[in-house]
């Protein structure tokens, strides 16, 4: 088989087509990045402010997707589903904070890991009991089902553009909230010195519950938006959770700005690596080998990125208490 029968980018494809493809892949990377941001913003807030390692963060993503899919299917309205998903994720989050996590603040990280790992299993089994073992169906709402040609010649799904838009809006909202509102200031105060903030009359307990609820609400939003693209199934949170942890380690634990930069970086590196690594390796390896090697290297790329960043900046790119 000659090289030209392979239509991969970089091998006998005109330059402008390659450029279009690169732009499209950057959009894909951006979309993965903002989804990761929604997850990691919540996780990093909870870790930075409450010093709790919450492995069950992926479960709230799953709850958002399940509740969203169910309400959307029953009511026929995507927006109603979205509202229900956000409410459910936030409410369950605050309940979990009040019932389980509140007992763990003073404990060792090992206890927190064990307890929240237990929560993962609890929620996975609960969804199986409530919704059964088969994945749920969820479709893109009709008004977002088309494709937009933002790049001429390549229709890009409008839903994915909407996801990018929502993610950027949330980033802006979080920035404004933390930098310019009273509650944001109180949260930051609670993060830097819990006792002192409490002594100044801030209700730290309430702040913690609210922060946790906000974090799980964002996870629920990410899950709801992923529903039409992905399989809504028990355990869906765990696959994104690992990437989320990579993001917050790269960005600097506890820093929302760091989470934003880290998420976009991870989204880009992962997407572009998967997209262009095969073409790169075909330059100097036989095609059959190149695809296998590229697949392996591409799936390692974000971990390599994490290793490099940790060597260069052990506290992450934008640490919270720099």
């Amino acid at each position, binding site marked *: *088989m000659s090289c030209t*029968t*392979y*239509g*991969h*980018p970089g091998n006998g*494809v005109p330059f402008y*087509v390659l450029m279009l*493809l690169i732009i*499209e*892949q950057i959009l*894909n*990377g951006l*979309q*993965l990045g903002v989804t990761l941001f929604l997850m990691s913003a919540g996780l990093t807030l909870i870790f930075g402010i409450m010093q709790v390692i919450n492995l069950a963060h992926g479960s709230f993503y799953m709850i958002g997707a399940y509740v969203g899919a169910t309400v959307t299917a029953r009511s026929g309205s995507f927006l109603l589903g979205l509202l229900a998903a956000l409410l459910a994720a936030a409410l369950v989050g605050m309940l979990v904070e009040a019932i389980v996590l509140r007992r763990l603040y003073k404990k060792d990280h090992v206890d927190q890991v064990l307890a929240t790992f237990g929560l993962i299993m609890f929620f*996975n*089994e609960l969804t*199986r009991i409530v919704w*059964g*073992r*088969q*994945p*749920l*169906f969820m*479709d*893109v709402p009709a008004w977002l*089902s088309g*494709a937009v040609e933002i790049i001429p010649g*390549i*229709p890009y*799904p409008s*839903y*994915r553009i909407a996801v990018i838009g929502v993610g950027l809006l949330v980033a802006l909202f979080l920035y404004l909230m933390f930098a310019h509102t009273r509650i944001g200031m109180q949260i930051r105060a609670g993060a830097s010195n819990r006792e002192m903030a409490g002594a100044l009359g801030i209700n730290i307990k309430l702040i913690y519950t609210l922060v946790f609820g906000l974090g799980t609400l964002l996870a629920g939003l990410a899950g709801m938006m*992923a529903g*039409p*693209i*992905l*399989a*809504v*199934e*028990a*355990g*869906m949170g765990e*696959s*994104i959770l690992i990437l989320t942890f990579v993001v917050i380690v790269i960005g600097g634990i506890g820093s929302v700005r760091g989470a934003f930069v880290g998420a976009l970086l991870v989204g880009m590196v992962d*997407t*572009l690596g*998967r*997209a262009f690594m*095969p073409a790169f390796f075909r330059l100097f390896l036989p095609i*059959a080998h190149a*695809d*296998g090697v590229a*697949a*392996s290297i*591409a*799936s390692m790329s974000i971990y390599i990125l994490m290793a490099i960043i940790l060597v260069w900046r052990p506290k992450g790119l934008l640490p919270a208490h720099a």
Partner: protein
Amino acid sequence: MKKLFMVLVLFILLLPSATWATKPVKIGMVTTLSTKAGYLGEEVRDGFKLAIAQEDGKLGGVPVELLVEDDGRDPGKAKQIADRFMKRDDVKIMTGLIFSNVAIAVVPKVVRSEVLYISPNAGPSALAGKGCNKNYFNVAYQNDNLDEVVGKYVNEAGFKNVYLLAPNYPAGKDHLAGFKRYYKGAIAGEVYTKLGQSDYAPEIAALRAAKPDGVFFFLPGGMGINFIKQFSQAGLNKTIPVFGPAFSFDERLLGAVGAAALGVKNGSQWTHDLDVPANRQFVAAFREAYGRTPTLYASQGYDAARLIGSALKSVEGDVSKLDALRAALRKADFESVRGEFAFAANQHPVQNLYIREVVEDGAGGYTNKTLKAVFTAHSNAYVDACKMD
């Protein structure tokens, strides 16, 4: 006191012989009921249980007791359960494993211990070729079978430039190899994705740029749902036909994929619409019992149970006659829901393989419709490598 003692001794002595006559044959089922793939084990188990229920707790007229345990898709855990079944429960017949990597870890030790294993799903090449064993039977398929049938169909339909996609793990490569065994055209790209990957946007963009005339993918479970949904959201399902083995198109997954899978042609050894008396009866009974349409996995569980029943009948439930039991299994003297069914020399099925299409079921859902048999009485590529004593 002495009298009481005597009564007790007598009681203990009598107990085993008293229960012997009615003691059911134990069948150990190690299957996957938890994790994302848990519905696969549920289907196999429900199909198997249906066969037992239809005979009022018997198989082949012999009372049986089905022991079911969940392996959580974990080879280590599955091994422990299999050990426990053999040592504590003295099980002589086992079945149930869903995943090939789990089967490769568990089956060799089981069959070496002179316990019969009847696979209702996993059919890795390692157990079909050199690693075949007289105590190992596969009633479902050799893993590549469902890819071979698609390969042959795609080739006959005149496709010349097909794009291949599978997860980057041994089974992924095996399945693509099965497709390529019968597909002779050019390959527009052969992409191995991360196992468990959820976002396929980069692969789909690269695929569009490669301009193939067809796509063949093996992405079981949630991965397949993700891929098809995203493929159709990118608008490609209107221009590039999609093919794959049945694993991404069973009736329960189709519910989660929705209209995105409409028109996809996929390969299977069985579909609920096969016009065979045993099958019509099975599908009706399964719907009645569980309120859903059976998937291929349920049919495999059902066939496994009925195959075991046919063998139990011939030895009248005496599982200590291992040679006779094995010989009876090899005859495959049961009415398969697939119609014609026999075992090849490596004790894997010789059966018809079909191409089917995803269509609307008329009740708002989606289902498969058999188009045609591409292979009749098809065996597998590993028969010659199997040297059974």
